[in-house]
């Protein structure tokens, strides 16, 4: 039952957030410069006022605002996000085509940062006050203060321009016609730089958090007991401390999902990674508001999904906690 209640509550929250964003999008569309009917008319090359008035009726722009809002919500519920201004393609198709690349990037970066972050944090905590600890702390401080897009550019400068090890942009080698394993490896090769760029900042955040949390747990009585009864150091760290220390890190990781998805927009722009972030950047240049707001909606949906994944990981790590809590 607890599971059902949990899923129900999550679903309710998800619908609440998505509805909020749809309403926000509607307001933003109204705020966007230009009369939508005039823009549509302009796109088809017509400018006479009669045609514009006709368009206005056709698209319900003569209706009162709340009616327009209801229509808009209905359209979005049926995944109709309007047409892209320039390309005259349904926005939903554009997003669907780009979504897999974004998912690949964010999910790999998420697990990379969580895994390496916790590892470094534990290492720092075990060597408190030694040089390893200082190095990790300083690196975390630097990663905290560096703009994400600039890290990406510097990595390109080092690994692509200077060393020539990794490709600087795109997702696959164009015109290589690779298939099977070679195709997958080619994508992974392209993935490394964007993934590391996006993951680096969060890795720093999680390392600091894991370090603080490990130090906190190390003071607990049951750890002293474990040490006193002669358990080897590594076992105390892994089996007794880590599991408890990692919990706050995981809940924070869920909390940070929004930033991760937002960061993906910047990283995709730098590396020309063909995901929805890059799509948003192109839409920005063309002031294509339908596409931009569609991407905004989907990033929020991704955040909600990340939150749910985080909850599941949390219960896997801590069996005491049932999801219904």
């Amino acid at each position, binding site marked *: 039952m607890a599971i059902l209640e949990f899923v129900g509550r999550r679903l309710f929250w998800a619908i609440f957030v998505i509805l909020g964003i749809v309403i926000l999008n509607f307001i933003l569309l109204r705020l966007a410069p230009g009369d939508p009917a005039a823009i549509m008319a302009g796109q088809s090359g017509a400018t006479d006022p009669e045609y514009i008035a006709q368009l206005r009726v056709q698209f319900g722009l003569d209706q009162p605002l709340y009616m327009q809002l209801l229509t808009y919500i209905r359209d979005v519920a049926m995944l109709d996000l309007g047409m892209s201004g320039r390309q005259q393609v349904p926005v939903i198709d554009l997003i669907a085509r780009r979504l897999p690349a974004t998912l690949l990037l964010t999910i790999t970066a998420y697990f990379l940062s969580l895994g390496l972050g916790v590892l470094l944090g534990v290492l720092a905590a075990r060597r408190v*006050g030694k040089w390893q600890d200082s190095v990790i702390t300083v690196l975390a401080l*630097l990663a*905290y203060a560096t*703009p994400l897009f600039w890290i990406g550019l510097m990595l390109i400068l080092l690994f692509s321009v200077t060393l020539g090890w990794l490709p600087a942009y795109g997702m696959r080698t164009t015109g290589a016609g690779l298939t099977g394993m070679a195709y997958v490896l080619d994508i992974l090769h392209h993935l490394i730089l964007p993934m590391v760029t996006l993951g680096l900042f969060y890795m720093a955040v999680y390392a600091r958090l894991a370090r603080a949390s490990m130090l906190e747990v190390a003071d607990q009585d049951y750890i002293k007991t474990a040490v006193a009864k002669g358990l080897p150091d590594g076992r105390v760290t892994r089996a007794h401390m880590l599991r408890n220390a990692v919990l706050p890190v995981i809940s924070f990781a869920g909390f940070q999902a929004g930033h991760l998805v937002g960061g993906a927009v910047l990283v995709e722009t730098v590396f020309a990674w063909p995901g929805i972030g890059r799509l948003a950047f192109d839409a920005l240049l063309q002031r294509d508001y339908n596409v931009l707001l569609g991407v905004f909606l989907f990033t*929020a949906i991704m955040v909600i999904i990340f939150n749910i994944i985080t909850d599941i990981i949390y219960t896997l790590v801590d069996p005491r906690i049932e999801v219904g809590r």
Partner: protein
Amino acid sequence: MKEFWQRFARNRGAVVGLVILIGVIFLALFGPALYPESPWRMTAPPFQPPLEHPGAYFGTDTLGRDIAAGLVHGARVSMLVGLVSTTVALGIGVALGAMAGYFGGVVDNAIMRFVEFFQTIPSVVLAIVLVAVLQPSIESIVIAIAIVSWPPVARLVRGEFLSLRSREFVEAAVIAGQSNARIIFSQILPNTLSPIIVMASLMVATAILLESAISFLGLGDRNLMSWGYMIGAARTVLREAWWMSVFPGVAILLTVLSLNLVGEGLNDALNPRLARKGR
């Protein structure tokens, strides 16, 4: 005050941060006097590497504009956007957080759902969308950054208010018949100042990062030179001209780092009981 400085100075990183920060502020205030010309003006041949052309110590960009002049003028924009947007965000966050924590119940519930909503949606994307819709200008950038950065303040202030609300001095004020507004502003709020100050210094840092990202994407104010814009404009020539992207990035890094360090120092100095372990 002396005690405050002693505690602050015990954190060596914070002292280094303060020195850098004073340097940046000095640059923002007086730098434009060193480079009175517009940073958009062409002063030397384009694509000059650092130290190559007399006068352009940091090199020139693709249009022959002096990178050093851009850095100096960019400092002013970064600090301005960081400070103003943080002030606005503090205003929103303190007001909502104080109401939620003071009144509790339905008000608290409604405000906290609102806060959670804003914390769920990806803030960078929202800020970009807002600037794009409101049209790029320094005002819209400040508004967008403020709108995405107030929720943590509201959370913090609410928590402080919740715990102070039931203290005796507040109850005494209630019994004495003071108005709600009076109790909020003159009894409780002054007691929440130190965590708010610490958070504010970190918020300025985040705001500067966000501003640089917005300008990098080409949504900066057309009339103002900013570090993010310089990096964004130099992106396509990264291969040929590293200095155009490297120097503005280092400027952002140093400024944000100094603010973070100062924030940690303030935390040590203002909340000595909460000073972190293992340091």
